[in-house]
């Protein structure tokens, strides 16, 4: 029970992010949800790194780098899609693309 409380925030962030990735049709919201999921993972790894073990902090650094780079790329992708289709709704973009 103590461990669940200790990692509660990380789990909550992961769950909110995971739910958002599936739930939202808007690509910008999906990107934010994915970033939240990753932030949850980073928080979890940092809470493990508090015991002084270097491996979790290394993993946290790697995950943070990946999250930053991929989030920037997804953001750019959203901007490009919005300029082209004037919407970020995935279903609408897919409908136009299949025509």
């Amino acid at each position, binding site marked *: *029970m*103590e*461990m*669940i409380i*200790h*990692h509660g925030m990380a*789990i909550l962030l*992961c*769950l909110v992010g*995971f*739910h958002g*990735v*599936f*739930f939202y049709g808007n690509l910008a919201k999906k990107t934010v949800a994915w970033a939240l999921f990753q932030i949850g993972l980073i928080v979890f790894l940092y*809470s*493990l790194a*508090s*015991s*002084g*073990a*270097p*491996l979790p*902090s*290394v993993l946290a*650094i*790697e995950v943070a*780098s*990946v999250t930053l*780079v991929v989030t*920037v*790329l997804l953001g*750019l*992708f959203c901007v*490009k899609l919005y*300029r*082209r*289709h004037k919407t970020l709704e995935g279903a609408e973009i897919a409908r136009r693309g299949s025509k």
Partner: protein
Amino acid sequence: MRIASWFFTPLLGFLLFYTCSQLPPPDSTASHISIRYVQKSETETGIRSPAGAVLADYRGFDLLATGSLFFASALCLFLFFPGSSRLEAWFPTLLGLMGFAAALALGFLSLFHGSNFLDYEALTNCVESPQARLDGALILTGSALLGLGGFLLLAIRWTKAPEGPGER
């Protein structure tokens, strides 16, 4: 997908809570390998920070693999852009893939031989040696930065790609 989300999220929540309940207390997670990293990393690698030593040296191949994965993904995405069938787009792609394959082959040889592949003298003499670790760390870090550079190139290409519905 929305219905799936209401099904999978509680499932993931259950799995995460169960996993966390099985984790050992934070104080007992310092295993013998972590203790070695903290106590001997500077002597063995020349890098002061234990996290830096793990990132660049002890787990340098992981970093190289991560960087290579980024680079390969960036190159694959690069080919989706308009004009990517031209030679100037394929040439860096093939060059990058060849570099990726060469790095993996060197890594395989290193692991197979049991020595640091950047210790050229030891490698050519077929002698096991833990020398030249700092050099190895620097070059592996550079490889990872190159991988991230691939993503930056992709981002620049992405922002400069032409607009409009008929661009593809």
